[in-house]
């Protein structure tokens, strides 16, 4: 039988709508594939179907996954879908098939013998690890008050490989619940915005108005200097170990951290 490719948008909604359509076709899953974005090399003897993301269909898929597979699996699938690798669509889709159709159900993430599940597990783990690192390594800058009430805004810029902002926001929304803060993903032009005391939300916007040093609050420079000094003086000379430091905190994170700025 002919292979059929469903082409989805690179987003959670895109992938979940793709899964909905794949099941709606009722053609079995052996010859169906989910693909993120356009393929450069079109295959002969394959049909391509473009999928338009649909919030209603996404909702249905989300509900099914949550009730039949449980929160744990659902979150793993979301993390895998936030990965930076283009084969995530296929991995997530085939994992759902393994769980719902092949019957591994709530235990699906343990079935690493299935290569798609193994891949999905791997992608989800990468996203989770990176989100964890960002929670530790994000450095906020305080921006001067934009209004008369004198409310300052904390702003942080990150450049993660995976789309981790949605997974990092809940942590800071809990910790800094009374602050206005914003986390900006440079590569995806994505902002996670949290107004003090309210729910957080995501915004995609072209970022040509990014705040520079001029936007800092009065004390910001001083605190940055203080922390750099602290970071320099706390180290024990004889135990310094650059290689290990790089293992724990890769250069791609260090680029966004103020305590490392001068060294590189």
């Amino acid at each position, binding site marked *: 039988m002919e292979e059929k490719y469903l082409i989805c948008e690179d987003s959670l909604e895109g992938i979940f709508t793709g899964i909905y359509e794949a099941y709606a076709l009722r053609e079995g899953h052996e010859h169906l594939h989910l693909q993120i974005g356009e393929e450069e090399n079109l295959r002969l003897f394959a049909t391509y179907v473009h999928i338009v993301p649909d919030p209603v269909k996404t909702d249905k898929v989300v509900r099914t996954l949550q009730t039949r597979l449980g929160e744990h699996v659902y979150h793993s699938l979301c993390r895998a879908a936030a990965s930076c690798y283009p084969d995530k669509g296929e991995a997530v889709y085939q994992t759902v098939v393994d769980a719902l159709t092949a019957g*591994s159900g709530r*235990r699906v993430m*343990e*079935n*690493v*013998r299935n*290569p798609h599940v*193994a891949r999905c597990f*791997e992608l989800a783990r990468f996203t989770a690890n990176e989100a964890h690192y960002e929670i*530790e390594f*994000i*450095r*906020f*800058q*305080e921006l001067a008050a934009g209004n008369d009430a004198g409310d300052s805004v*904390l702003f*942080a810029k990150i450049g993660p490989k995976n789309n981790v902002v949605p997974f990092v926001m809940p942590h*800071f929304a809990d*910790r*800094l619940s009374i*602050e206005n803060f914003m986390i900006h993903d440079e590569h995806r032009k994505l902002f996670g915005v949290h107004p003090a005391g309210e729910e957080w939300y995501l915004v995609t916007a072209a970022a040509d108005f990014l705040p520079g040093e001029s936007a800092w609050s009065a*004390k910001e420079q001083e*605190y940055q200097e*203080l*922390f750099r000094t*602290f970071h320099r003086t706390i180290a*024990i000379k*004889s*135990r310094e*170990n650059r*290689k*290990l430091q790089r*293992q724990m905190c890769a250069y791609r994170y260090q680029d966004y951290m103020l*305590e490392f700025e001068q060294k590189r």
Partner: protein
Amino acid sequence: MEFYRRNYIEGLFLSSGILYSPNYTMELICETVHRLRTIHRFQGYIHIKAIPGADPLLIQKAGFLADRMSVNLEMATAEGLRAIAPNKHRKNILAPMRQIQNGITANKNEITLYKHAPHFCEAGQSTQMVIGALPESDYQIMSVAENLYEKFSLKRVYYSAFVNVNEDKELPALSGGPPLLREHRLYQADWLLRFYDFKVEELLTQQRPNFNMAIDPKADWAVHHLEQFPVEINRADYHTLLRVPGLGVKSARRIVAARRFGNLTFADLKKIGVVLKRALYFITCNGRMMYPTKIDEDYIVRNLVWQNQMGRGEKLPFLADGTSYRQMSLYEIPAFDSDNDRVSQFKALQTSVG
């Protein structure tokens, strides 16, 4: 506070030398933490030192304010402590440790009764030992650590390689920097105690009181107990799997979970995250080993050490330059052509089959 807000820091560590008297110092620490928590509303992690010899009431009070408390043991043995820090007594150190432990258990019971009872040292307690300053053996250190875990239910014991602050003829002169590799081996063994159900007597004995610097403690144990290997991945229980070098807590759990769906192969193990280059000497999948290998102590050790020397085995980040391998002279084995060894074996096998 501003550091915490900007996510520069996660928490605080308060420590102090004794100023005037233990009680006075402890009071100051208490006061500081109290201010942080109540006036500045600091919600982050606070780790404080309990000062040995301070009033139990003060320690009690501090425990409700901090997340973790620790008392430094400094030296593994009572004699060692006397030699290095004559004004510290072992009894004084152990007393607050016991108190904190009792505090934590009592508090746990309280919390099961009253959900909103204040938390006492939620993150448990820990301690620290300096190593390499005195000639105690690894066996002594590990036995003390095991005791602390069992009798004082500590969360962690930290080992820190001795760093010279001031030169003193009583203190050993350390050429080549602090004994970092030894510290590393102690931490490895510490993990074996806490997560792998090992006992100190299994790893070390009075006759063999120090760790082998050339291979890690788990591999060392395994090559001395070859009669228990190879282990069949698809049948062995969780605790047996944990004892295989190259398998960790996570991979052992994943194996147990994944084999419900069917037999595992070596390719599956690789995906699970098993370090096959170390594990292959000790496991079978469906009754077969990965390569035909000898189950022989010398042979395995030679291969493991050889991998290390080629920089393909254990990753030791502080051995950046090849020269520091001099420390490994305990097991000075020339890099044999073990690959040839394996190839010739394989050929012999082929001819016998063909």
